């Protein structure tokens, strides 16, 4: 048995895959420092730093993938994908359809996401719903080190473009780099189970599009991804003492959605609560309501999401991000 931190697990799985598959190359800003352990093991032909030119290096990653490589293109933050969306929206996501199914771009876009450390609204977004909106993109949001490593392996084996999001509150290195700067004077509400955990001795791919039930309960189903799963588990623990029994379903991938698992659990409990750190409107939370409606499942529905631009001030930010208080209140309302 071995335990790892979240990003350590991703890098470890990535290293295993790079040893097995020489087509995998890493591309990104400051990657020579950020992924220095991979650089000294695999060399600068495979671990390549870039200028601050997102449109160029993501576009390069997409086309290199089409031409036979398996690039992992890493970003400082998912927010910065806005600079180069064309490569994803109009190219990576479209190649398979445009080529009549004959050609794909197996690129993995790796990016930290999420808030909770006071960096402001241009640097703390989640955006997985925005990305998952586009047909042809796979969007992965793991919540534990074991899933993070296993899903990275799956992403590398997947034949289409995949976005792999690491929540900064779970990532020991990103939180230090961007949040604390090695200060001991700041504190974050880090979900312990997500930041460090048991991982397999040898990495095996975790199937894409397969949710996992983190907690079984009969009254309400809470569905989420990333840090949202942990906030839901904290809330479930509190609600248990009030006699409310909560299921927590970790989607692990936003696209494709595990509709079967969602519908099964929602049908059992008759109450569905979506916890989503991404924006509320036109996103994952609304999509899940469509999933259960289309399946004809009678259930009550509520959501706890981010409704506004994320404010910089920590107390304001804590109020607007999904937290256990908001989740508990919402569950109690569903129970009425």
């Amino acid at each position, binding site marked *: 048995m071995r335990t790892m931190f979240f990003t350590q697990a991703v890098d470890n799985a990535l290293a295993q895959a*790079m040893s097995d598959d020489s087509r995998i190359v890493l591309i990104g800003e400051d990657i*020579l420092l950020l992924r220095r352990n991979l650089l000294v*093991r695999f060399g600068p032909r495979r671990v390549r730093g870039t*200028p601050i030119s997102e449109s160029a290096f993501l576009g390069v990653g997409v086309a290199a993938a089409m031409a036979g490589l398996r690039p992992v293109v890493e970003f400082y933050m998912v927010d910065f994908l806005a600079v180069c969306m064309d490569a994803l929206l109009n190219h990576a996501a479209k190649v398979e359809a445009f080529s009549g199914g004959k050609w794909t771009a197996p690129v993995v876009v790796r990016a930290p996401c999420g808030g909770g450390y006071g*960096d402001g609204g*241009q640097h703390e977004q989640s955006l997985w719903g925005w990305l998952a909106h586009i047909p042809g993109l796979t969007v992965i949001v793991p919540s534990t080190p074991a899933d993070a490593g296993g899903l990275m392996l799956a992403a590398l084996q997947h034949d289409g473009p995949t976005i792999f999001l690491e929540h900064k509150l779970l990532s020991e290195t990103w939180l230090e780099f961007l949040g*604390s*700067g*090695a200060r001991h004077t700041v504190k974050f509400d880090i979900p312990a189970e997500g930041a460090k955990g048991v991982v397999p001795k040898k990495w095996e791919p975790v199937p894409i599009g397969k949710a996992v039930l983190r907690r079984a309960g009969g009254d309400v189903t809470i569905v989420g991804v990333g840090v949202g799963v942990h906030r839901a588990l904290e809330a479930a623990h509190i609600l248990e003492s009030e006699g409310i029994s909560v299921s927590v379903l970790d989607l692990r991938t936003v696209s494709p959605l595990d509709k079967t698992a969602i519908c099964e659990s929602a049908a059992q409990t008759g109450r569905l609560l979506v916890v989503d750190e991404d924006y509320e409107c036109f996103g994952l939370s609304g999509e899940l309501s469509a999933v259960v409606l289309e399946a004809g499942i009678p259930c009550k529905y509520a959501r706890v999401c981010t409704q506004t631009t994320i404010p910089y001030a920590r107390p304001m930010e804590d109020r607007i991000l999904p937290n256990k208080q908001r989740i508990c209140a919402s569950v109690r309302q569903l129970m009425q």
Partner: protein
Amino acid sequence: MPPDLWSFYKIMLQSRLYEEAIAALWHDGLISGEMHLGTGEEAIIAGVVTQLHEGDAMALDHRGTAALLMDGVDPILILRELLGHPDGLCGGKGGHMHLFSKEHLVASSGIVGAEGPTAAGFALAAQYSRSGAVAVAFFGEGAMNQGMLMESMNLASAWNLPVLFVCKNDGWAITTQSEMMTGGKLNDRARGFGIPAVDVDGRNIIEVWEASHAAIERARSGHGPTFLNARCVHFEGHFLGFQLNRMVRNPIREMPGIVVPLTKSFVHPRGGVFRERLAGLKLVLGSVLSTLRDPRRDLANDPVRRARITLQSDTVCLNELENQVEKEISEIFTTVMAEVLS
């Protein structure tokens, strides 16, 4: 005629002391997230901003505190904002990378290169409705590889927009040495768009003022954009708590956590051939060594100190001015901290 060196020194010192106090608050955990100081680039900001009038606009990067202060934005409002106070410049909602002042026509962005289109847009509005007004973009040389900045330079040239593109060139794009990732010369790029490029020593306030004065006058009189390439250093690296600086400043504390996994990876049985591994290791060591040799460690590159050296023969005046500025900054911080802690 430029303002005399005394008034330049005063605003640079104000900015320096203000930002040093900000750094202390950040270290104390009272400011969250990333904090990018402009310490080291004060001469560039002062040389340009002192020439702006009402109606002129600025597009700032994630390092905008000095420009806002020198443009006359209330230092109390800025400080409240950095502390996340609801009565801050942006209601506590923007934070230090996203500082805005509508009345001063100043917008910031944490997206590298975004200053280009913003300044060009401000300049278009100026050209259209406020004849003689200009817009300034402040960015680092890392942004010169960002498409939107290059596109904006072209547009500014094609539309003859009154823009001053100010490149605060410290040679580092976060942890990457810019020359490793940049093809050709930056000045040649600007000239390729038909924009005059001017090299300037960004540590020398008078030199910056003179070069930017000519460029701003040119823009005001309808002759289009200029590119100012101003060399400088950033004493704190990219941001406070910068990993490369920590390694160099406190190797005993920082190095074990870096060296142990690095060595394990280097000797791992499964990986690249030795030649490739060695090339990788050289790059990592190269980064650390360049930080050790970095000009930002040399106080001779400090623009505030350089101005002071010229003024120090008049000890009485200098002491008076420094005491006054220290008192003023201290009062700002005392006032705001009292509000925040109450």
